[in-house]
C-alpha cells in the first residue's frame, strides 16, 4: 500500500485532510512570509494515532511536522513540502491534575492558559506565560522552551516540565523524567525541551504547578527616554530586589497599544512595568524599597495598581503590544534576541541607528529583566524591496545581539527564520554535535526537516507576504 492509503486506513475522512482548500490553513504559522504545501494533514485524537502516523512516516521515509496552534513566529511549524503535518489541537485533555503533588499531566494540544485555569480552584497555576498563552499549546511551548514576562524569577518552560512521553522519529515510545522535581540520571526531558520538534513528538507532558502568589504590587513608571527606563531597571537589580517581571515599551509601542486597546498609558518616550509578588508582608516591604528606587530614577509619572482590575489594565497594553503594532503598519516582523542586561542601553541605541539607516520604523517592547529584546520592524510589503530591507534590518539586530554576548533567540526559537544565523552564535563543532545527535535519533531526517540546523533541507523560499 502507498503512504496515503495506509494513512486512510488509520484516520477517518474528517481527520485526514488532503484537499487544497483543507490544507491551506496549515501552510504557514505566524511567520506568514513562509508557506509550504504539505501532502496531507492528520488530526489525531489519541497518542496511539500519533505513534502510528510517525511509524508510517518512518517506513515510507515521509518527513513530518508536529503542529500545535501554529503561533510560532520563526517558521517552526511550517510544513515540509510533500510531507505530513500532525496537528495536535484535538489532543487537548488534561489527563490528571494532582494538587497535592503540584502536577498536571496533559496532552500536547492543551492550551497553556487552560492549565492555569484548571489549577486555579486549588490555588495553583502554571508559571510560564508567553503572550500567546490564550492560544499556544503546551506541545509547542515544550518544543520552543517558551518564555514570558516572568522568566527571570521562574525560568522558562524547561524548568516546569517534569516528565515527557515522546515518540522518537523512528517510532519508539519513551518516557523521560518522573513525577517529582528531582530525578537521577541525565536530564533527558530537560534536553528534549527546546529542540523544536527535531527529536520527536511529545505525546504526554507532566507539568509542575506553583502556588499562585498571594499578593502583587504592579507599578507603571513613565520616562523621558529609553535610556532612563533602562537605568531604572539596573537600579532595581542593584537594590537587591527580584521582581517577578520588568517590562519596557517605547513610544511607538505605547502608541500602538493605545490605538488597539486604549490602555490609558501616558504618552512618553518609555514606560517601565515592574511587578513584585509574594507573601503580602514581604511584598509590602519590597514595595517600599521599590518606591524609593523609582523615585531616585526620576520617573515622570508613577502609577501603582490599587486593585486587580488596575493591575490587568497595566498589563493589557503590554500583552497586546505585538498585535497592536498592526494598527501602525500594514506589515511587521517580530524579532526576538537577547543581550546581557547591562548592554540594553547600547543595544537600543544601535537599533535606533539601524532604524534610521534603513528608513524603517522599529517599535521596542522587551523583557528588560532578562535582556530579551522584541524589536518590531515595521514595513509595507506592497512597496517593492521593503520586505527585503526589513529582513536585513532584523538580521542586523540579531548579529548585534550575538556581538554583545547574547543570543539569537530568547524564546521564539530558530525555526527556519534564523537557521542561517546559527553559525554566528555557534562554532562548526557545536553545530556538528547537534547534527550528530539529530542523525542518531532520526537517521532519515524526517522530524521537522529543514529547521534549526543551517544548510539542512531545502532553503525556505518566500511566498505571499502579509502580516
Amino acid at each position, binding site marked *: 500500500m502507498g503512504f496515503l492509503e495506509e494513512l486512510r486506513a488509520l484516520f477517518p475522512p474528517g481527520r485526514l485532510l488532503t484537499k487544497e482548500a483543507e490544507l491551506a490553513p496549515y501552510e504557514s504559522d505566524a511567520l506568514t512570509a513562509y508557506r509550504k504545501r504539505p501532502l496531507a494533514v492528520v488530526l489525531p485524537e489519541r497518542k496511539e494515532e500519533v505513534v502510528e502516523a510517525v511509524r508510517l512516516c518512518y517506513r515510507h521515509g515521509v518527513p513530518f511536522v508536529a503542529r500545535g496552534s501554529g503561533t510560532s513566529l520563526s517558521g517552526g511549524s511550517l510544513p515540509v513540502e510533500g510531507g505530513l503535518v500532525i496537528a495536535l489541537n484535538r489532543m487537548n485533555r488534561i489527563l490528571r491534575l494532582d494538587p497535592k503533588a503540584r502536577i498536571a499531566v496533559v496532552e500536547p494540544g492543551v492550551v497553556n492558559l487552560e492549565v492555569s485555569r484548571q489549577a486555579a480552584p486549588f490555588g495553583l497555576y502554571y508559571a510560564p506565560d508567553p503572550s500567546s498563552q490564550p492560544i499556544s499549546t503546551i506541545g509547542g511551548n515544550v518544543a520552543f522552551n517558551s518564555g514570558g514576562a516572568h522568566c527571570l524569577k521562574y525560568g522558562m518552560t524547561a524548568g516546569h516540565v517534569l516528565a515527557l512521553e515522546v515518540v522518537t522519529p523512528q517510532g519508539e515510545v519513551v518516557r523521560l523524567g518522573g513525577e517529582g522535581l528531582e530525578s537521577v540520571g541525565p536530564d533527558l526531558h530537560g534536553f528534549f525541551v527546546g529542540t523544536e520538534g527535531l527529536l520527536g513528538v511529545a505525546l504526554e507532558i507532566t507539568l509542575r504547578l506553583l502556588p499562585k502568589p498571594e499578593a502583587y504590587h504592579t507599578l507603571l513608571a513613565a520616562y523621558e527616554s529609553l535610556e532612563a527606563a533602562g537605568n531604572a531597571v539596573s537600579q532595581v537589580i542593584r537594590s537587591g530586589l527580584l521582581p517577578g517581571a520588568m517590562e519596557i515599551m517605547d513610544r511607538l509601542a505605547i502608541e500602538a497599544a493605545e490605538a488597539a486597546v486604549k490602555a490609558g498609558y501616558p504618552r512618553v518616550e518609555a514606560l517601565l512595568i515592574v511587578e513584585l509578588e509574594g507573601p503580602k508582608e514581604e511584598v509590602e516591604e519590597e514595595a517600599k524599597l521599590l518606591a524609593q528606587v523609582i523615585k531616585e530614577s526620576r520617573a515622570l509619572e508613577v502609577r501603582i495598581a490599587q486593585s486587580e482590575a488596575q493591575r490587568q489594565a497595566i498589563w493589557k497594553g503590554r500583552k497586546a503590544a505585538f498585535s497592536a503594532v498592526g494598527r501602525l503598519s500594514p506589515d511587521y516582523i517580530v524579532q526576538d534576541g537577547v543581550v546581557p542586561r547591562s548592554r540594553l542601553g547600547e543595544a537600543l541605541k544601535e537599533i535606533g541607528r539601524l532604524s534610521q539607516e534603513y528608513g524603517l520604523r522599529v517599535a521596542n517592547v522587551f523583557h528588560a529583566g532578562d535582556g530579551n529584546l522584541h524589536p518590531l520592524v515595521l514595513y509595507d510589503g506592497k512597496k517593492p524591496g521593503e520586505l527585503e530591507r526589513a529582513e536585513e534590518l532584523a538580521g542586523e539586530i540579531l548579529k548585534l545581539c550575538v556581538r554583545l554576548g547574547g543570543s539569537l533567540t530568547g524564546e521564539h526559537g530558530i525555526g527556519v527564520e*534564523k537557521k542561517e544565523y546559527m553559525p554566528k552564535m555557534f562554532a562548526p563543532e557545536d553545530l556538528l554535535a547537534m547534527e550528530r545527535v539529530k*542523525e542518531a535519533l532520526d537517521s532519515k531526517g524526517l522530524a521537522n526537516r529543514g529547521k534549526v540546523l543551517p544548510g539542512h533541507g531545502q532553503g525556505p523560499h518566500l511566498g505571499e507576504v502579509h502580516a
Partner: protein
Amino acid sequence: MPEVRANSLEEVREAVRTYPRLRPKGGGSKPALSTPKDGETLLDLSGLRGILEYAPEEFVFTAYAGTPLKEIEETLRAHGQYLPFHPPLVEQGATLGGTVAAGLSGPMRERFGGLRDFILGVRFVDGEGRVVRGGGKVVKNAAGFPFHRLMVGSLGAFGVMVELSFKVFPYPRATRSLKVGFAKAEEALAALEGLRTLPLDLLALDLVPPATLEIRLGGFPESLEKRIQRLQDLLQREGEVLREDEAHWEGVKNLAFLKESPIWVKVPSRPDLIPLLEGLPLGPRRYLAGGELLYAGLDPEGLQALRERAIPHLVLRGKADQPLYPPPPEAFFAPIKRALDPKGRFPLG
C-alpha cells in the same frame, strides 16, 4: 590506578584522544561515582579551576568545571548573591562539574528550583576530543540544542565538562527558621503537604523523620517576624524559632547528618512516596524541598531494599556495582550517547 591530570582545555582534549576509557573526577566528594573501574583511567580535573567571568549585575557567572564550589560561593557572597539550588558537599570540596554531573541540589532548592533550573551553558569535550558548546551566558536563551541541560545528572557520560555558566540570585537580606515537632509521622507529613500548596515562598521545607518539620524563611527583617507568626498559626504550634540559622543550614547542606553512614544515596522522592520509604531499613536521612528530595545514609541492606522496590536512586559514596538506578531509557539515551561518545570512553557506556 592509572591517573592523568588535565589543567587546561587542550590537556583535556589530549587526554580524551589518548586514553580509551576515562573517569573524570572533580574533587572526589562522591567517590562512588568518581572512582575508576577496571580499565578506566582517572582524569583529575581539580587543576582546571577558576572563575572566568562574573558580572553580578547580570546574575551570571562562568567558571572552569573543576572550580571548588566553596570558591564560587565565597565570590558570590561578597556581592550579596548565591547559588539558589544550594549545592551540597561544599565543605567536602565538591566542584562545579562534579555537582552538575551528579545532579545535586540542596535544601534551598525549595524556593526557586534545582540545578537544572539555573544552569545556562556548558563547554565540554566529547568522546572524539571535540569542543562543544551548548546554551549561552545570558539568563534567557532558546538557541540550539540545550546540551547544558543534558549534562545535569549525566555522570560525565557525554563528555568532560570544561566550562559552565550559571544564573545566580541575590541572597535574602535576612533569614529565620522554625522547627516544629509533631506527635506522629502522619501529622508531620500532613502538615508538609499542606504547606507545599500555599504561597508562602519558603526557602526550605524539610521533613526530618520521624516527625519534625524544619522551615526556613528569607526576606526583609521587618516582614520575617510576621511570616514566622503566620506559620505558627497555620501549624497551630509554637515550635522553636532560630534567629541565627546559618550554621544549622550549612550543616544540612553539607549532609552532615549522613556522616557515619557507609553508603550515601540521593533518592528523588515525593510526599506520596514517603510512607513507603519510611517502611524501608534506611539510616539517617532527611527529606528536602517539600519532600521531593531524600538524602539517606544506608548500609548494604538499605541499598538492597531500594533495589528490590525498584526505587530510583543514585549512590554518592560507598560501594555499589551500579551507582545509578535505573539506567537511563535506552531508546532515547543510547543514540545520544552514540552521537557524542561513539567509542564509549566515558561512564554509562
